[in-house]
């Protein structure tokens, strides 16, 4: 398989499965490193826009803060509430982790480099995000406490509603590219990035992505000042850490998807494809972090009203117009 676009003979002699193994481990390690590094990045960047320093004592520029936090959380007491449903309680945090990591299978990081080139890659990603709803529902239900239950209910309703137009906004992209395959979608953007013709879809997808990952301004269900801590009230120690890092992996995933679907993925001059992909993903991760520092939190009914009364009609109209133009062009 080719690693360089011009067909370098560097790895042409090795069997295919070595290349695939390297790709798998490469994507896994990079994603986990980015998600862990996001802990540091978010705290420093939020502090930068808030006229203060973030953690800058532990290690150079505070980089070892991640390590310190990890050690601290690993050594915490692993406590399951006696009134909780034990097996479900323990399983719930790993679901968001697992689904987000699985979604990275289909994201193309460079030309021809993708862990699994599935024909229905985009559908697979949407299916994985639907499965992620289970984590909050099961966490809220298995905790058997009032705050968790209400938080879990709100989270489930929020995520399920925003998923509707997350899918719909992407159908415009699929129509224009003619395929659900993410590599084909990136290839189809060689002429013009889809953010230009599908700007409305892009905005809707960003809002839906914020809501799916439960980031501000849609973090009502887990914010510290709301409902104690929402569905993860009863979680402590490594299970809480898994929710936390799982959320960062989901943020990385949504940023990578925005870059892939609307901003041309790994396309770009001079630099190798991987660099462009990382740069674009980094820009959107930065946007997610800055959005956290900017927007006030809407009330839950305002959040649901925004979803159903504004986002859904907008995405349907976008779909209508895109479909009409594509059909008329044929």
């Amino acid at each position, binding site marked *: 398989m080719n690693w360089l676009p011009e067909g370098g003979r560097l790895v042409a002699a090795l069997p295919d499965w070595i290349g695939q193994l390297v790709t798998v481990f490469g994507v896994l390690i990079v994603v986990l490193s980015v998600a862990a590094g996001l802990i540091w990045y978010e705290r420093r960047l939020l*502090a*930068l*826009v*808030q*006229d*203060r*320093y973030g953690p800058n004592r532990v290690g150079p520029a505070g980089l070892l803060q991640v390590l310190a936090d990890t050690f601290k959380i690993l050594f915490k007491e692993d406590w399951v509430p006696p009134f909780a449903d034990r097996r479900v309680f323990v399983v719930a945090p790993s679901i968001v982790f697992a689904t987000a990591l699985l979604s990275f299978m289909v994201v193309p990081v460079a030309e021809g480099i993708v862990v699994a080139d599935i024909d229905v890659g985009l559908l697979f990603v949407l299916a994985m995000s639907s499965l992620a709803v289970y984590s909050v529902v099961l966490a809220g239900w298995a905790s058997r406490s009032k705050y968790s239950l209400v938080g879990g209910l709100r989270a489930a309703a929020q995520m399920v509603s925003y998923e509707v137009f997350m899918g719909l906004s992407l159908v415009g992209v699929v129509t224009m590219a003619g395929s659900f395959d993410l590599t084909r979608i990136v290839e189809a953007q060689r002429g013009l990035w889809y953010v230009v013709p599908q700007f409305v879809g892009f905005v809707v997808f960003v809002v839906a992505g914020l809501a799916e990952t439960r980031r501000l301004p849609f973090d009502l269900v887990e914010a510290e000042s709301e409902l104690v801590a929402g569905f993860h009230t009863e979680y402590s120690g490594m299970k809480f850490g898994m929710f936390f890092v799982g959320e960062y992996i989901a943020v990385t995933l949504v940023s990578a998807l925005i870059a892939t679907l609307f901003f041309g993925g790994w396309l770009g001059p001079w630099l190798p494809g991987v660099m462009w992909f990382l740069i674009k993903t980094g820009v959107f991760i930065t946007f997610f972090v*800055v*959005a956290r*520092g*900017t*927007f006030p939190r809407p009330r839950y009914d305002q959040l649901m009203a925004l979803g159903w009364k504004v986002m859904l009609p907008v995405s349907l109209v976008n779909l209508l117009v895109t479909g009409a133009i594509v059909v008329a062009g044929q």
Partner: protein
Amino acid sequence: MHSPQPRDPSAQPSRTHPPLTADVVTTGRLARRGQSLAPRIYRTVVSTLQALGIVIGHAFHSRDTVQYPDEMVYLPPRYRGRIVLSRDPHGAERCVACYLCAVACPVDCIALQATQDETGRRYPAWFRINFSRCIFCGFCEDACPTYAIQLTPDVEMCEYERPNMVYEKEDLLIAGTGKYHDYDFYRVAGQAVGGKDKGAAEREAPPVDLHDLLP
């Protein structure tokens, strides 16, 4: 009786006649201006971009944090920090052991014992302040008639053992005059002590001779 005309929401209230209530309510068609879809979308987008602009603009401001202990935060000269016992401009200690500071202290952290030297001048035999109780209110400084006890802008006095936070007189006494450089109590008081008779203080006239008929 006609109803009052609704105020135009875009009209500025006059400076001499501000609205009588905090919330000015408009009704009717004037109230519905700017509430339809396009103006609301415009306002939402503009306010979102303004908010993002303000927040990102803050990335270019300098940070307000003082990196203690590498940098020290500014403490003004009258900051109520560590307590000291000062001396007068001639080098003798100012404290006359009048117990006023111990009485004024709201948490009773000052203890002392008065004694007299051979010239008749009072001074504390021992003087103890328990800084684990002290609330740094400054009442002792306000009560002191000789400007002996003063609060200085020094706050770095942490200890690991609680008994180390009880300061004795040798820990409290300083070599200088503290914040008040010229005041010398015994030079203005009327008390007759070693080195000064009655009537020899500053701005004091000598005592009148009762048995003399002359003015």
